[in-house]
């Protein structure tokens, strides 16, 4: 497949899940098992296609857009249907298809009440098109549509298959995210008219930047910032996340942590920074401060949690703080770190949510105190996996979690765009606090492992036959477990792909 001409492959891969969702709704609801298998088949075909795309991607030109499609869409407002992928898009696009396939496999055996696999899987596939489209859309309007398209399916996923407080969590998720994204839309329109070039092309606008006065850039950046910061989420806009994560069904949490949060950081890197470099430079110190508050605050909250899933949710706030710190550094190393942290967090935290979901199915509780320890004795393999992923999440060198955090702090010591001159001291302070954050992170994860894995299983579980890791779980978890190790010992796997594209992007920043 020639990456210069095979734009169709990307279009097919993108809309295959949508067509699949339509197909699923046609199958009668009583064919329960067949529906689940069909969903696996659909997402497997999609994944296979994306694998082929990944294989035929021209890595020597990873900085340029490949597999492009560009046709007129809404002529009245000059919006174009413009798709493509470069070294930044590719890993996130790949992760989306991988996680969806694994979730489909996982759903063949596990689905919370009220069942209804048809609706659940159709929503998941619809969600997939929205998520994947966000990473390959190169027109602001098209990007916005895909970005927003994820809201409705995720709302239903949380609201119909979620935990006891699902009503509250689903509505809060929807409204909070919507609030930010409309401000983003206003900012997009302001950018469009300010540029005055009758184009929404992300690349085109990046090349024209900077335009408009500093005041304009500041206000436009504020609008875009609200949209993406809520999605990431950056402290103090994070309050929807613990609720949404805790109440969402396992698959929902995995996709939320694995892909949805990434759309926010991706948006910062792809849109906010290159198109509004002056605004970004003014906001960078503030983003850095918020990021570090997020890191420390997230870790402290984790120490106080009694519910495993809620703890993992709060750990996301901390981890995304490191990603934002990388972005706040505004230099090549920082962006690289942010993108790496993105993928690493998606793989690790996605896996943690899988584990938390399985734990809940076995113990029927997520309270750490009720589980009460001894998992290594009760379910040895499961206990080892849990320890492995938790340690990866706390950032142990040699596993995926390390590189994003380390590189982000390293990059923030010497921020780009001349920030080092004015804010050098501030950034140094930020790095110190971030380092304290890593210690706290290690603290709460080790404590979690101690409370769940070690010791003797309490009375009530001693006689209970708890199944160890099952075949279906192995199938859906192994790729993630392998990726955690692979990215940890061979980070070039990702850094290498992203390198050229990040260099281009930083070129737009003028840094």
């Amino acid at each position: 497949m020639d990456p210069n001409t095979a734009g169709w492959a990307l279009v097919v891969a993108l809309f295959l899940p949508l067509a699949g969702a339509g197909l699923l709704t046609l199958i009668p609801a009583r064919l329960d098992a067949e529906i689940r298998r069909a969903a696996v088949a659909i997402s497997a075909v999609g994944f296979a296609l994306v694998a082929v795309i990944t294989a035929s991607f021209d890595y020597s030109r990873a900085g340029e857009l490949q597999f492009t499609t560009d046709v007129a869409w809404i002529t009245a407002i000059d919006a174009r249907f413009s798709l493509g992928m470069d070294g930044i898009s590719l890993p996130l696009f790949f992760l989306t298809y991988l996680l969806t396939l694994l979730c489909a496999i996982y759903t063949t055996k596990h689905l919370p009440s009220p069942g209804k696999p048809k609706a659940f899987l159709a929503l998941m596939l619809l969600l997939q098109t929205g998520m994947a489209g966000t990473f390959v859309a190169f027109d602001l309007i098209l990007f916005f549509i895909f970005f927003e398209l994820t809201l409705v399916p995720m709302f239903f996923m949380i609201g119909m298959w979620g935990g006891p407080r699902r009503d509250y969590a689903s509505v809060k998720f929807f409204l909070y995210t919507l609030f930010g994204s409309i401000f983003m839309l206003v900012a997009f329109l302001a950018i469009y008219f300010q540029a005055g070039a009758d184009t929404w092309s992300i690349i085109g606008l990046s090349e024209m930047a900077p335009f408009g006065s500093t005041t304009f850039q500041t206000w436009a950046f504020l609008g875009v910032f609200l949209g993406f910061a809520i999605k990431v989420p950056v402290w103090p806009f994070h309050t929807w996340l613990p609720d949404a994560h805790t109440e969402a069904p396992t698959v929902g949490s995995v996709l939320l942590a694995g892909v949805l949060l990434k759309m926010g950081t991706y948006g910062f890197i792809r849109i906010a920074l290159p198109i509004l470099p002056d605004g970004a430079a003014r906001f960078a110190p503030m983003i850095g401060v918020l990021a570090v508050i997020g890191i420390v605050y997230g870790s402290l909250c984790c120490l106080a949690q009694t519910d495993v899933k809620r703890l993992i949710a709060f750990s996301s706030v901390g981890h995304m703080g490191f990603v934002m710190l990388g972005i706040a550094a505004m230099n090549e190393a920082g962006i690289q770190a942010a993108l790496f942290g993105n993928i690493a967090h998606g793989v690790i935290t996605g896996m943690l949510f899988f584990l938390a979901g399985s734990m809940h199915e076995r113990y029927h509780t997520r309270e750490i105190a009720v589980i009460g320890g001894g998992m290594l004795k009760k379910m040895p393999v499961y206990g080892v996996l849990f320890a492995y992923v938790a340690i990866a999440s706390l950032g142990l060198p040699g596993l995926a979690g390390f590189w994003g955090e380390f590189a982000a702090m390293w990059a923030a010591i010497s921020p780009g765009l001349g920030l080092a001159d004015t804010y050098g001291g501030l950034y140094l302070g930020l790095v110190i606090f971030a380092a304290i954050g890593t210690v706290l992170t290690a603290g709460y994860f080790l404590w979690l492992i101690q409370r769940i894995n070690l010791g003797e299983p309490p009375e009530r579980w001693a006689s209970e036959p708890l199944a160890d890791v099952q075949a279906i779980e192995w199938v859906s978890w192994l790729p993630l477990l392998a990726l955690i190790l692979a990215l940890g010992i061979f980070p070039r796997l990702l850094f290498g792909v992203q390198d050229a594209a990040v260099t281009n992007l930083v070129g737009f920043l003028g840094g």
Partner: protein
Amino acid sequence: MQIDFIAILPEIVLTVTALIVLALDLALRGDAKQFVNPVAALGTVGAIVATVLLWGGERVTFNEMYVVDDFAVLFKLLFLGTLLAVLGISWRYAAENRIFQGEYYFLLLTSFIGMLLMPSSRDLIMLFIALETVSVPAFVMVGMRKRDLYSSESALKFFLIGVLSAALMLFGMSMVYGFTGTTNLSGIAAEIASGDTATVPLLLASVMLVLVGFGFKISAVPFHFWAPDTYAGAPMPVAAMLAVASKAAGFSGLVIVAFIAFEPVADVWGPVLGVLAVLTMTVGNLVALQQRDLIRLLAYSSVAQAGYILVPFGLARTGSEVVNAAAIEAVLFYLIAYAVMNIGAFGVAIAVERRTGLRSIAEYAGLSSRGPLLALGLTVFLLSLGGAPATVGLWAKFAIIEAIAVDITLFGVVLAGFLVLNTVIAFFYYLRVIKTMWMDAAPEGLPRLQPGFNLSAVVVVLMVGTLVLGVLPGLVTDFSSMMSLVAAG
């Protein structure tokens, strides 16, 4: 005076249809009476054909009182399309609720004749006649559920408020005539622009009186009190017609008066209507949050929607053609989108009430299992009213924000801020209905819903329309971009 009969052909076709309907009602007996509905639909299709033929040209007749241009044709198509949908959802409803069908359809068609006149009017007198032709049959239709005291009450309320607003408007018009010496809209604009009357307080007051008259028609806060009671008491197809067609007619009149006749004082009425827009959407949404009855919820939601549509009026500026044209386009596009999604929502409400007599939101629980098509339809319509992606509602909001962003001012940013806040508030109650339908268990013993062919067809067509326009809004935005006419006068 030479009359251009081609220009008024759609109105003629509809008038003839109305008379045939009235005569047929006398001729038919018993159950056969319901066949006046297809006859009316046939006449509507005829009028649509006649209107489409007028596309592209510009015809002026009746001493420049009456103009048929693309702006007018687009509005006429909007009204006729709405009429077709209202006829679709009235089938069976009229028969089952023992409404006098001949009268009902005759009045419905008459009211729509008034609407067809509205966007073509270029004269204050003509405008007033059109407005009254819309309103007077509606007064009667609201009260058509004769045995229901509630229906009579709402008709009376509607009548009193309607007459009051007409009186205010007429008073304002008479003073405008006194100042300018003409009732022709372009003449008024020229007169205001040329003289130094633009700053006379009494002229501005009379301009406001005219605008307030339209404010009642489009149920802008604080002139909205009649709307929820009237919608709730009226027969449901009439409520749908009032919430969509009659409101769109009010807006078409407001566009003409505001942007043609009063354009030279736009700097004065622009901010006033902008503030009204903020009030209307905020009050509408906040009150909608409290509603337990779906029709009342839709009523307050349509008050809020009127607030959104008023936002572009708040942007209007004297002499700034780019901004004014963008504002008019936004109004037009929003009205088209609004018609599609709001009639759809009322259609589903009718289908549910017809079978079960239920209209409280709690009783929509489990609708997804009792009538999946209806639940899916209502979900799409509500998401679209809110402005979720891949529905036409998103582009409607987009058009408004686009109009704001053409030339950013502080006032525009404030309006955009309120628009965003209100969109979020509105989703809160739309989502509540959606959640009830899909996530709550259905009460025992309720029948499966079989809405019947006509109603299903209307719901499906509108649902597909909502989604197709949501993906390809260019199908309509390309129309409205041809429309610089009113800004030019």
